[in-house]
């Protein structure tokens, strides 16, 4: 902004107290704050860089083909993350299948259908609260509800259902925002053509909001990938010497029993390695973190790209 541009030439004696107080000091403070603000903002970037370099320095040498294709082991140099990343993949797939339809449908209802009344207000405040509930509480819910009450055990399915509870509120919030950004004139034009409400939602509003909804989904899933606490609470195993879900097609057509087997995930495996005192396991943890980082960065990059492309191409706003 130009209003604070260069220091104006003081017409009065610069050493005069009043001039100093009214004209010079405020501008100096403004400049000073601009510098403080820039450094505060860059500080977080610096921390990210340090964090990344540190993990890179510790773990890069350990990151090789053997590490990615081995099961966990008591010997740090033979241990790997095979069961962990396959488990993470299964878990995310199942979570997406369970959570996304429910979350998007809920967002469509709340944005497009809901009338303003006490019930919808209540639903809204519930969703906002759920999005802020600590993830470990969802773990307790999963433990009490899925593991014990529904008797699913400490299984892949129980884990996916627990993570779904975490993903649903986040996706509802971001999808609602995307739907809200579709201008009303689109809806009105559709109604004017004689379309029904669902036709309007299905063929106009939803397609227009898709990039925004997709961005929200990717971000929510990338958070879910890194979640450790709720899976620990339901008791996900740390030693898994087999591939989860390997027997899916062992019976015709699909054998769902394999979803009831124990599993491990990348963050759980990393936690297991971090909490051991030996240095060699800490190196393994760093290598595992690098893989986790790679996945998170890729997903976030995808979200940023999607949003950028959408902003460029959108016909409105």
């Amino acid at each position: 902004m130009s209003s604070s541009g260069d220091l104006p030439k003081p017409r009065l004696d610069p050493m005069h107290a009043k001039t100093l107080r009214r004209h010079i000091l405020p501008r100096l403070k403004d400049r000073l704050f601009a510098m403080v603000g820039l450094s505060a903002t860059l500080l977080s970037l610096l921390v990210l860089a340090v964090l990344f370099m540190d993990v890179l320095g510790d773990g890069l040498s350990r990151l090789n083909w053997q590490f990615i294709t081995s099961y966990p082991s008591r010997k740090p140099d033979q241990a790997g993350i095979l069961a962990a990343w396959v488990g993470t993949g299964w878990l995310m797939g199942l979570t997406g299948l369970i959570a996304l339809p429910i979350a998007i449908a809920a967002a469509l209802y709340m944005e497009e259908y809901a009338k303003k009344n006490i019930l919808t207000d209540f639903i809204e405040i519930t969703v906002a609260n759920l999005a802020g509930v600590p993830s470990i509480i969802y773990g307790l819910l999963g433990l009490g509800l899925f593991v014990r009450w529904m008797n699913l055990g400490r299984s892949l399915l129980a884990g996916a259902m627990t993570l779904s509870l975490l993903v649903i509120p986040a996706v509802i919030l971001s999808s609602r925002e995307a739907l809200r950004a579709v201008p009303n004139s689109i809806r009105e034009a559709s109604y004017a053509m004689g379309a029904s409400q669902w036709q309007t939602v299905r063929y106009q509003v939803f397609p227009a909001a898709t990039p925004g909804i997709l961005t929200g989904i990717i971000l929510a899933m990338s958070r879910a990938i890194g979640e450790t606490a709720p899976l620990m609470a339901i008791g996900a195993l740390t030693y898994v010497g087999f591939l989860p879900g390997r027997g899916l097609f062992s019976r015709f057509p699909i054998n769902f029993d394999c979803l009831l087997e124990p599993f491990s995930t990348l963050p759980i495996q990393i936690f297991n390695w971090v909490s051991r005192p030996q240095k060699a396991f800490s190196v393994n943890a760093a290598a595992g973190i690098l893989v986790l980082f790679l996945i998170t960065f890729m997903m976030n990059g995808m979200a940023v790209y999607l949003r950028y492309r959408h902003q460029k191409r959108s016909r409105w706003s």
Partner: protein
Amino acid sequence: MLNRAAHRKRFLQRVYEGLIERALFGCALFSVLITGGVLSVLLFETLGFFKEVSLIAFLTDTQWTPLFFEKHFGILPLLSGTFLVTAIALSVALPIGLVSAIYISEYASDPIRIFVKPTLEILAAVPTIVYGYFALTVVTPQLQRFIPSLSGFNALSPGIVMGIMIVPIIASLSEDALHAVPIGLREGGYALGATRLQVVLRVVLPAAISGVVASFILGVSRAVGETMIVTIAAGLQPRLTLNPLVPIETATAYIAQVSMGDTPHGTLAYRTIFAVGTSLFLLTFVLNIMGFLLRKRFRNLYE
């Protein structure tokens, strides 16, 4: 005049629309169902806990040793641990987050903004287990060089790292609030000859204050509920202290610790995690509702 087939088609269409609305409504109700599930699971196990332990002992006993031979069930040590780490985290995150928000919203040029905002998002997306690793293997050893009496597990290092984790939350939510203040208010300030800083401090910030406070509250709520950083780096030793240099345990870390072991279902030790979970839920619930209402009020003011 419409013929029969057209009437029929229209009727079916209406039924179909109604069914879809019902189905979508059902999905929206699902979130209420989840909340109900959380509440009933927590309440059920917590009631079982309080059949064996009195509420007064739970709230006033100064020791928390449910896994030892001599059992004490005072939640104060866990709450003091949570409070201590949260306070440290906020004293890092509040100033940095708010100053960053003001800078990004009021000072930054477009190239900086375009570069900084996605980076903050990535910072917010870093899995917390990574922050835990960072606290344990980098921050604690570095701090020990300056504070020799610092224990290998302590509240200070996870607190600082948690603060760094919360910065993006406070920065982006506060920035949204500052950004939403109408430009006319700022121009009024400039017209009176104010500098940017004066406009920010006396016009924009007061106008956006409910949104900014909401971001603080949500930051507190995140700090209170954060689990992995403290589980890894704070030591898992419940202790009623405000000394940041010794090992402590937070409420979340206790739940994680018990889950790691093989605590049989139905025992008192198993129920303790639900009692602690209920306390945690109530605490974050109050914070979240406060944050939600403040943000809503702010939105109604300017949107």
